[in-house]
């Protein structure tokens, strides 16, 4: 009840009204493979339909990764260049466990009840928990360094730490396990989760993952804790005086962002059936950064749009501009930083009233009454 | 303001509005500084005195209003251009360059080569301490010495106008006397716009005054009139400022 006072539009109806655009987006995405199938008639697991499912799966996963970055940069005001460490950490955790540990277990013990493979389910659950554990550890590593450092120093430190992790991920010393430069390929997956055999399943898992992560993050940033994190960004000194320990809240921001990034990385590893050093490199972080800035920082929806633009438009750019399409993208990014610093969603929200006014003015031209 | 007055005024600030971020700091400040005199700006802490000085100099450019210096509109120009027209600035809190030696601090203020050599004797006569310390880095100076250096720095080029912000702040009484003396000597050479919390010092130095309150200029006139108006002093400058009687007593004891 008390919550109702704070949020005038709560409950299912309010939620639907508030998140209308996002829900419509989800609905379109659910219908997408089937509609495309009807149009092209190639079958759900073949041809163009399969290709675009793959594009969208990457988009969904990268959207979650970008959103987790938005938690850091947009809400926490923390500029970290080591976010790919969490993403890659999750990916490597999955790939390592599924490749080196799971086959042993699965070949030795196998318990099934009816159609349900208990061992397999347990193994997947354990893998899932390990991913979270790894992300938490990486998150703690980064947030521990942020206790003493701020701003530019911190950004440089995260870059160095992130690079160190990237170097480790491709170090030849661990070739036996990580595959060094080439990474881990051919990660064995259960048939129902195999993206080449059952792409539609993976498609809906990724979509569900995006939906779930969006809802959880949305709830988080609107919770009292989320508000303290935002307030921390604005004025740390003041929050300290009020009695909030900024370090704790920064750590919360780091840990949650790291967990979401780790999960996204894990799913990315499953979808590609591989984990490569690129996933831990700064380029991956910068991609997330570009997506976030493009869509708008501190909006959550923005990073999704940014990821979508980067993934989908990238496809078209590739056909238009060839292999060097990121050049066009880079120039676009520079222009956006200079002229639309709040991104697409941010700018739209800032100009919302004026856009609305213009639309109303436009309609008033056609109405006879004054 | 009549045209005749304009002739004698070196600086005229006409209803300027200054914003810092989204905060409206100055809401219509007007003042004028007559050529060859000391004008003092009075007001409570946070009234907008320092911002007024910075607005004149273009460090926080005003959004509205006019600033005329030496017959030329200077609002909206870059700070270094304004300074090069002949305005020296002595900021509050002794903002000297701590990484530079005394000599370097003074040399940095040169606008043309040879400015320092030309005025060195005058500066070192005014502040003999600095001559002794000229090789020391700025962060080795005491507070009083730093303040002297800050004033001396504004004397290196031949400025037509000096903007001096709270020269007595945090100084020992004997140093305040020395600083007052220095400013008096300076006023024979140039025009000075002074911000001063120490009313005794202000009343003894200045010919004219302007009171700034809450970002507006509320009163201006001859200092001699203000000293005789304890009510006005009390109203705008608060209880901390001593009444005339106390002032005189204080003055006598100091003499």
């Amino acid at each position, binding site marked *: 009840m008390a919550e109702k006072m704070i949020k005038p539009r709560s409950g299912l109806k309010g939620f639907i009204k508030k998140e209308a655009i996002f829900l419509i987006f989800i609905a379109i995405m659910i219908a997408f493979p089937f509609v495309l199938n009807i149009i092209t008639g190639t079958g759900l697991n073949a041809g163009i339909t399969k290709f675009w499912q793959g594009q969208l799966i990457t988009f969904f996963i990268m959207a979650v990764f970008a959103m987790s970055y938005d938690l850091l940069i947009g809400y926490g005001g923390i500029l970290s260049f080591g976010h790919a460490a969490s993403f890659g950490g999750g990916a490597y955790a999955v790939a390592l466990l599924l490749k080196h540990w799971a086959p042993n277990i699965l070949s030795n013990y196998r318990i099934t009840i009816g159609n349900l493979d208990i061992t397999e389910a347990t193994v997947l659950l354990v893998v899932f928990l390990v991913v979270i554990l790894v992300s938490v550890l990486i998150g703690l590593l980064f947030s521990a360094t942020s206790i003493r450092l701020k701003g530019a120093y911190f950004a440089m430190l995260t870059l160095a730490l992130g690079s160190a992790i990237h170097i480790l991920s491709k170090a030849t010393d661990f070739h036996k396990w990580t595959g060094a430069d080439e990474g881990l390929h051919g990660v064995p997956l259960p048939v129902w989760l195999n993206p080449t055999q059952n792409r539609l399943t993976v498609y809906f898992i990724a979509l569900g993952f995006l939906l779930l992560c969006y809802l959880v993050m949305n709830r988080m940033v609107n919770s009292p804790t989320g508000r303290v994190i935002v307030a921390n960004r604005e004025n740390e000194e003041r929050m300290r005086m009020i009695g909030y320990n900024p370090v704790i809240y920064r750590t919360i921001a780091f840990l949650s962002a790291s967990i979401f990034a780790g999960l996204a990385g894990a799913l990315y590893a499953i979808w590609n059936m591989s984990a490569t050093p690129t996933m831990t490199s700064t380029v991956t972080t910068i991609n997330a950064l570009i997506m976030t800035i493009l869509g708008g920082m501190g909006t959550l929806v923005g990073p999704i749009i940014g990821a979508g633009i980067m993934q989908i438009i990238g496809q078209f750019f590739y056909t238009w501009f060839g292999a060097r399409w990121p050049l066009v993208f880079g120039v676009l990014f520079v222009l956006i930083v*200079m002229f639309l*610093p709040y991104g697409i969603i941010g700018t739209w929200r800032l100009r919302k009233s004026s856009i609305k006014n213009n639309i109303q003015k436009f309609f008033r031209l056609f109405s006879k009454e004054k | 303001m009549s045209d005749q007055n304009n002739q004698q005024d070196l600086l005229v600030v006409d209803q300027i509005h200054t914003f810092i971020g989204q905060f409206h700091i100055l809401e219509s400040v007007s003042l004028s500084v007559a050529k060859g005199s000391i004008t003092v700006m009075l007001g409570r802490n946070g009234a907008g005195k320092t911002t007024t000085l910075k607005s004149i100099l273009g460090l926080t450019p005003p959004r509205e209003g006019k600033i005329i210096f030496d017959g030329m509109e200077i609002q909206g120009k870059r700070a270094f251009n304004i300074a090069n027209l002949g305005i020296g600035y002595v900021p509050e809190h002794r903002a000297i360059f701590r990484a530079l030696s005394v000599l370097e601090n003074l040399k940095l203020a040169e606008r043309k080569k040879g400015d320092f050599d030309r005025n060195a004797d005058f500066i070192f006569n005014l502040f003999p301490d600095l001559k002794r310390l000229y090789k020391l880095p700025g962060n080795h100076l005491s507070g009083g010495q730093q303040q002297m250096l800050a004033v001396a720095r504004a004397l290196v080029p031949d400025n037509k106008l000096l903007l001096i912000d709270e020269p007595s702040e945090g100084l020992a009484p004997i140093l305040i006397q020395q600083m007052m003396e220095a400013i008096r000597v300076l006023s024979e050479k140039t025009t000075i716009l002074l911000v001063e919390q120490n009313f005794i010092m202000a009343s003894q130095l200045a010919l004219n005054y302007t009171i700034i309150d809450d970002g507006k200029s509320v009163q201006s006139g001859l200092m001699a009139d203000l000293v005789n108006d304890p009510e006005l002093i009390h109203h705008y400058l608060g209880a901390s400022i001593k009444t005339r009687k106390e002032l005189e007593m204080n003055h006598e004891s100091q003499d």
Partner: protein
Amino acid sequence: MNPRTKKILTLAISVVVVIGVIFALYLYAGKEPFIRTTLSGLTLGSLFFLVAAGLTLIFGLMDVLNFAHGSMFMLGAYMGWQLYTNPTFIFGLLPTILAFACGVMLTTVMKPYLIRWQISEKWQNALPKIAYALALFAAIVGFLGLDILGLAKTAMVAMTTSTAGNPLSEISSQEPLSVYWYRPLLMLISGLLVAFAVSKPGDKTEFAPKEKVLPKLVIPLVLLILTIVSTLIRESAPETLLLMNGNWRFLIAILLAVASGFLFGAITEMTLIRPLYVRSFFIVLLTLGLSYVIRELVQLLWDPLAYQMSRPPLFAQSGKAANLLDWLRNGYSTIDISGVTFPTYRLFVIFLGIVMFIFLILLMTKTRLGMIIRAGVQDPQMVEALGINVKKVFTVVFAMGVGMAALGGIGAGPFLPIQPQMGDQYLMQGFITVVIGGMGSYVGAFVGALILGMARAFGDYFALKLSLSPALAEASTVIIMIIVLLVRPQGLFGKKE
């Protein structure tokens, strides 16, 4: 304890620790490996210093964290390498660039007249936009049909063929002058239009005193002459250059790399970074985007390949020099340093770093610019209030920092593979250096680079000895940074905030 004794004590302890560490390494590794590793460390440290010095100055003065610094290092390597192996790319584009610069430089001459032009506010807004659009159009037409990719085409030169073989084999073909002549002309017009727009015609808030026109005309006039000269020598110059002594060619390559870095830095600061000083967070994003663009541009021009630059003759003759004189006379590729065979080129890189350090010391302590920089690090506003154009100083410092990174790039050229991501590692190590040394301190950058270079060299040595990969040694440099940060969060030479 009073601060002075404390300071002396810390200094004494650190000196003892450093000597102890050096001695321990000496005992453990033995004389020969120790000297060799130390020299390698100095080579690396020299490169780290060249990158970090610019970073730290730029950060100290403007609070700008330049993430494009690594790309600028890379760009320096590419420019120098191009001039050294295939100068057609540079000479083919030089006239257009000079012509454009000449046009833009006329701003100072035009401005006092243009801002006094009486036009309505509507035109004041519209004219610059029209001028920009026309300038863009002229530039596009000027470059239309110019085969830039063809000019840039360069074969991957193997190191062994450096001295032998035909040096002219790399030259790309160029358009004849009868086709080319209008390109510089159009770029000059484009530059003039930009100058017109930048002057803000009719804008009364702008300030430009009418001074003598003649001294202002000197730079544009020089540029105009250079444009004409470079247009005329465009076809013959690459050949002449390639046939001249390789050592001189390398010197010109170094100068060109530094000059292009300087120019690029100045343009970047003036056009891209300056509007964002009020939103400093976005500068980081902008420099990131810039590094992205530079890398893609380089990959577009030269493909994502790794090139090998041949060493200039002074360092190319196979054999071992007995001493410095012997080397300078005969140009051996290695030199004997108390029993250790060491590549002479690396000695040159060490020399480069030391020269730049001395240059910086002189600049910072003896010149007015250095004085302004040191003052500006503390309080740029007050420097401006003294009548100094701080924005100009910002531009110069940014350009200088980038120029130094470019120098590092061309310095590294002959012994690192020249590839688009070659700057990444140096950017990261540069950041670590700056954090260790303390932001804004060039002495800190020098000491930090020295520490880091040694750590890398000895790390590699131990990794090899313990049969680990050098990647682990690279990753472990982060540990040094963390230790320094725990002991002194502001860095070794940083000032406490």
